[in-house]
């Protein structure tokens, strides 16, 4: 079927397009304007902005930790809309209503990948993917301890990606979860896992190398050590240095943007980090913006979460000494009157506004850790309108604003910059050639927003969203009930790795390593097969 969107302002920076015009779609793909053909379906989108569907590269929407948060916090009424741990149905509906058509759950330990994929299969309307977490797993540490070479570790990583049907590799405070099981209570970049010489730095470099050896489109996705601690900007800077020239994605950089200045010994060090990111072309970062309100922190950084238990509101938490990372679930309330929370809010915005390349900074709240993803429209308003920022700053503790530079920043994001940060750049970072743009051949995942003075309102309820060319949202309301695809990489590996894994698992764990493999789409209840993203050659 041939479809035409007519009269809208098409903002497609990946193809250098920004202007009023028509967009043509046929059979789920964008096509060039056909000569003389007549559209079977025409959507008049005059007065609207037309962008590719949004892609969220870091949002905790599935897996055993997220589901434990649902069970931990019935009082947050998981079944209703605007909450921090929505159910699968609500996740799909709310993301689609905001014009998002794909999300990546970034923290799935390989052993619990089957449940994560079952949850993703129940998220309607949008495409999904997971990152597989390595870096605290017994087998990797064993390989490193035995000085196994790069290719053995790359084969192992590829086997994990294949078994867990993931799109990339994540490391979360590498080494710390393993060390915590030996009663270590703090763990930095150059600390070693007990009874070994394996440092966090070495794990990061090893996994970076495996990522490059396998040609994975997505760089190593890293949650650094010392999250949330005063003065941890030094850790982030040292980690960027440790990356060398190889690609590295740093997750939720805001949570590492802290200095020790000021009367409270806590300040924003965001300008330093932004400067470092600007100078290092191999580094990308998502922000993990804090927004005020009740949420729950869900993290596989089990050590950090254990240490944060005292701040739980309401006062309860779950700590899991899991296989590999495990995790912790600590409910938390970001308060406008709280000095520290206000500094966190400002530091995130400073990073967004001071990192000058929208291709290397990514739009996240680390849902739900900084805020639920439902805060995105309000965050877009803060980035695009400095008067909205100024108004918010007036309501925050003055002494907090004094340890940040936010008030001095005048930059406002433009629509093409927003389209890069939320569409084109995520697609490129994940290796999704046919997403994130509106050129011929791209998937017809399209978001249409009605231009209005209230930026948050504009982005909260998209006027029209098409997924694979089919309308799924009108005026923020679902008009279809379809299910998207799950996207993976399938790097090649030497099957001999299975022999080593088999022996290790039988002896150490008493089970088969094959038992953790995610089955085919049908067994998960998926109507569509997994989609594979090619590796770089």
């Amino acid at each position: 079927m041939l479809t035409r969107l007519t009269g809208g302002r098409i903002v497609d920076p990946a193809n250098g397009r920004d202007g009023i015009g028509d967009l043509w779609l046929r059979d789920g793909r964008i096509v060039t304007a056909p000569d003389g053909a007549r559209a079977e379906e025409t959507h008049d989108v005059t007065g609207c902005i037309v962008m590719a569907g949004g892609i969220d590269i870091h949002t905790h929407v599935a897996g055993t930790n997220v589901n434990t948060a649902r069970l931990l916090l019935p009082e947050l009424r998981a079944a209703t809309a605007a909450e921090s741990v929505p159910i699968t149905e609500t996740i799909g509906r709310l993301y689609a209503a905001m014009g998002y058509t794909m999300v990546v759950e970034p923290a799935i330990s390989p052993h619990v990948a089957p449940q994560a994929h079952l949850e993703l299969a129940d998220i309607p309307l949008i495409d999904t993917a997971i990152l597989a977490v390595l870096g605290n797993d017994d087998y990797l540490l064993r390989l490193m301890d035995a000085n196994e070479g790069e290719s053995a570790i790359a084969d192992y990583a590829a086997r994990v990606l294949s078994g867990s049907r993931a799109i990339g590799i994540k490391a979360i405070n590498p080494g710390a979860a393993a060390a915590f099981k030996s009663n270590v209570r703090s763990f930095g970049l150059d600390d070693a896992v007990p009874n070994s010489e394996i440092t966090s730095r070495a794990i990061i470099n090893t996994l970076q190398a495996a990522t490059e050896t396998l040609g994975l489109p997505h760089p190593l996705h890293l949650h650094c050590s010392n999250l949330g601690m005063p003065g941890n900007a030094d850790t982030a800077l040292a980690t960027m240095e440790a990356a060398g020239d190889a690609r590295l994605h740093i997750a939720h950089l805001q949570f590492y943007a802290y200095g020790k200045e000021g009367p409270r010994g806590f300040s924003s060090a965001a300008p330093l980090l932004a400067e470092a990111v600007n100078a290092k072309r191999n580094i990308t970062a998502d922000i993990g913006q804090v927004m005020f309100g009740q949420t729950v922190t869900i993290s596989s950084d089990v050590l950090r979460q254990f240490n944060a238990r005292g701040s739980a509101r309401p006062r309860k938490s779950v700590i899991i000494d899991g296989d590999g990372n495990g995790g912790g679930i600590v409910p938390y309330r970001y308060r406008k009157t709280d000095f520290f929370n206000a500094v966190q809010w400002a530091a995130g915005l400073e990073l967004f506004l001071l990192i000058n390349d929208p291709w290397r900074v990514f739009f996240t709240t680390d849902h739900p850790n900084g805020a639920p993803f439902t805060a995105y429209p309000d965050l877009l308003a803060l980035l695009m309108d400095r008067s909205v920022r100024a108004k918010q700053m007036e309501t925050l503790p003055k002494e907090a604003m004094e340890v940040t530079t936010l008030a001095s920043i005048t930059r406002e994001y433009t629509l093409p910059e927003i389209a890069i940060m939320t569409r084109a750049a995520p697609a490129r970072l994940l290796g999704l050639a046919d997403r994130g743009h509106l050129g011929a051949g791209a998937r017809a995942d399209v978001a249409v927003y009605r231009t209005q003075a209230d930026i948050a309102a504009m982005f909260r309820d998209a006027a029209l969203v098409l997924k694979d060319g089919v309308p799924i949202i009108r005026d923020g309301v679902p008009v279809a009930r379809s299910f998207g695809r799950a996207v993976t990489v399938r790097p090649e590996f030497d099957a001999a790795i299975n022999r080593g894994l088999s022996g290790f698992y039988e002896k150490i764990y008493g089970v088969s390593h094959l038992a953790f493999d995610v089955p085919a789409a049908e067994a998960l209840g998926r109507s569509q097969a997994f989609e594979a993203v090619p590796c770089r050659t």
Partner: protein
Amino acid sequence: MTEAAKAWLNGQPVTPARAAAAAASLLAASRSAVVAGLGTDVAGARASVALAQAIGGSIDHMDADAVLANLEVLRRSGWIVTTPLQTRARADLVLLAGDGLVEAWPDMAERLALGEAPTVTGGSRRVVHLCPGTSPGGAAGHDGRGGGDFQTVATGQPILPTLAALRAIASGRNTSLDDAAAAPLRDLAATLAAARFGVAVWSSATLDTLAIEMLCGLIDDLNRKTRFAGLPLAPANGAEAVAQALAWTTGFPPRTGFASSAPRHDPWRFDAQRLIGCGEADAAVWISAFSPKPPDWDNAVPTIALVPSGTVFRTPPNVVFEVGRPGGDHEAMLFDPALGGIAFAAASAPSAAASVAATLAAITAALPPC
């Protein structure tokens, strides 16, 4: 559903399609129905939710008491837990708390390698069984199979007061116990404190909420100085995977109602046995794919049963569907206690028997449009 599927209406064999139509009209005519039993896999749990939502009914699991005994603790104060693999790999001390452990997980001792050294950290492993044989009808549980360093600690008291005294002693507080009674607990407290990675194992089919809360509090206290974690064993009849699936699809564990626009969870209100006993529910769907178990309420309300062949009813339900065993007759996503998570289970003896998911989907599809 396949042609081999078997179904009965009022005791007479009928086609599955005829039975689905009859089940649908029975449910459509009800004002308040329960979807209960729920002994099924993830696909069956999803289909149960879809049916309960379609008829505005409520949902319960036959082992919900055990699920909720744990969840009451979780949502009151939280906990620190670990996995069976990490227990096997790292636990230098395993505290078996109370009874019913082998009943909950017959392979426990072998899978956790209780008689062997921790497989990753090495050294030695001690196993202490606290209060064996003190539950009503409780068996001794762990029998020390595989040798190793195994001991029992008993106080002549049930598990709850024993755990309370142990926690007090471990925290250096006084108890009302006399010296002789306190002595074994003092030794045990020292053993717990000396563990490097201790794991306490319990079954919520046996321990109640108060005992679990006391045990989790003890674990919490021990983590001030060393590492300690809990290992709750999964309840029976697929309850763990069902509870997980209900959490991500409805936001809540079993005992949730769908009569209003948003699901409501209430462990008392949506207890299927209570709803039927007091006449609040006027129809029931009973699902027990893992064992040939009839519902406790016999035929007090019109009932549609999804059960394996060989299930014996005192009074036959109005509609009976014969269903296959998940992971036996058909492949399934199930909680595997040895893995500590949901995993794929291939069909061990594939048959044409219908699945719970397919049977419920047929009933839901046959409901009149509302």
